């Protein structure tokens, strides 16, 4: 059933002056799954990711979200449909407090965002919901801390809380564990696992143990193409995948 797939790409291609960063990628993300996109450096993961979130325009191919063609849609509109991305570099608003960070996301859906004549205090009505979301990701104590003063791992959690504030259907996470210590990785992994009960997640991730533990399905990219797809156990047996990661003639 096509309905099972929330996000699909057909022949997705991105060419940079003769170099194919992503070539003819057909991706199908099942609703409610955690889908990981992995591959060695330069495999086109981030390019692929930026195509899906519309921060890059594909050279060819099609992107379908819930059956709707979003290939030519501007990124802000895609976000409004419930397909929301995170960034590799922790994307918070550094000089806003954690509460304000989340509120900016809540505020968009509920209007008032162009009201320059109203006092900021009208936004206080979102404080309860914002605090709820912060509590959800274990950030209650940071509510009034400017994001810039929070530890790295907590910024990630804040980013996820902000994304959740939009009540998305699907989240695209760009290397959620990049630059994190063990303790933080475990926390964020548990968080991702927990939210995946409600949302579909597609993530690009380098850390293979994270991918192994979290993902329902994994797509391996090399040189811009899909090399293999399957669950972690299957892929570890795949000779092509071993070769791509460890180099030709290995093992």
């Amino acid at each position, binding site marked *: 059933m096509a309905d099972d797939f929330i996000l699909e790409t057909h022949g997705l291609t991105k060419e940079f002056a003769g170099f194919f960063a992503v070539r003819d990628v057909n991706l199908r993300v099942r609703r409610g799954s955690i889908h990981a996109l992995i591959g060695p450096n330069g495999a086109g993961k981030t390019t692929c990711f930026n195509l899906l*979130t519309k*921060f890059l325009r594909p050279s060819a191919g099609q992107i379908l979200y819930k059956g709707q063609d979003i290939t030519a849609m*501007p*990124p*802000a*509109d895609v*976000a*409004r449909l419930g397909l*929301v*991305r*995170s*960034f590799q570099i922790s*994307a*918070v*608003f*550094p*000089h*806003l*407090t954690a509460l*304000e960070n989340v*509120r*900016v*996301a809540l*505020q*968009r*859906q509920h209007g*008032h*965002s*162009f*009201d*320059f*004549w*109203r*006092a*900021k205090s*009208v*936004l206080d009505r979102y404080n309860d919901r914002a605090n709820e979301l912060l509590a959800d990701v274990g950030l209650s*104590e*940071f*509510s*009034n*801390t*400017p994001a810039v*003063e929070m530890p790295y791992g907590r910024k990630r959690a804040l980013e996820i809380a*902000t994304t959740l504030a*939009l009540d998305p259907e699907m989240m695209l996470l760009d290397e959620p564990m990049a630059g994190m210590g063990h303790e933080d990785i475990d926390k964020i992994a548990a968080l991702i696992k927990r939210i995946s009960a409600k949302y579909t997640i597609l993530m690009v991730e380098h850390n293979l143990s994270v991918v192994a533990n979290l993902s329902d399905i994994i797509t391996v990219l090399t040189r811009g193409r899909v090399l293999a797809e399957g669950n972690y156990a299957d892929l570890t047996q795949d000779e092509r995948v071993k070769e791509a990661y460890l180099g030709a003639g290995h093992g």
Partner: protein
Amino acid sequence: MTTITDNAIATPRRAVRDEMIALAVMTALLAVVPLTGVYPFFVMQGLCFALLACAFNLLIGYGGLLSFGHAMFLGTAGYVTAHALKVWGLPPELGIVLGTLAAASLGVLTGLVAIRRQGIYFAMITLALSQLLYFVYLQTPFTHGEDGIQGIPQGHLFGFINLANPNTLYYVILAGFLLGFLVIYRAINSPFGEVLKAIRENEPRAVSLGYKTDHYKLLAYILSATLAGFAGSLKVFVAQNASLTDVHWTMSGEIVLMTLVGGLGTIYGPVVGAFVIIAMQQYLAGFGQWVTVIQGVIFVVCVLTFRRGVIGEIAHYFKRSL
């Protein structure tokens, strides 16, 4: 951990209180000027430039957009108000409204073009547009070219407030300044202001949250243009002329300078900066052309030694927001 949170909780409230105290102090100081014997013309001129710099600061300090053409709003509003008063014989209030509306319309038109680019390109487009307008004003008959519009009647505001009386004029200009200042203050502390700050801090993230950031930047630009125009209209009553100086690119440069000296992205910085620059021009007038050189040196020293500007450094030192 508790100390961090405690401090942080206190910050927003404390900030509002500090800002309100500063507002009361500023208003009180400005209100007693006519009693002190300070040359009122100088202060009125300063107030107009202060409002102009605050309008400019709304755009760069909170929207992150450096306009290098803000003189076009000042000058356009000035010309329209001057023409309305002198040629059409309209009352002052209508003259101000027309001048401000002219600047707002110009803001819509130039904003639609300029907002498509960022950083240096945005600055260059605004500069180009203001230069274009400068040459239009140089050539069109209604501005009287190099001579400007001279001897503008000040008239009676609302039919009964005689603006020819220096003290009355002073309080009217002060009221106008405070009105503009409060509009800007509110805009900065509004739901719109929150989004604007978010865009300044991290535009790609704001986009990913579903914000069409161009729309917000355009609104900030138009607001800024409108208030800069309001300052230009008020200035006509002070200077009683409208000339090419106000649309020249050096004026745009001075606006940038005032804001930087006072403190970019601070609420009171542009006001202080405007008075510093105006005072410098006043007291250094004896040096003739050297004023420009001295201003240049001060600008360089300012950027090198106290990058946050006068108010910015004070606020940073006391860990307050001003």
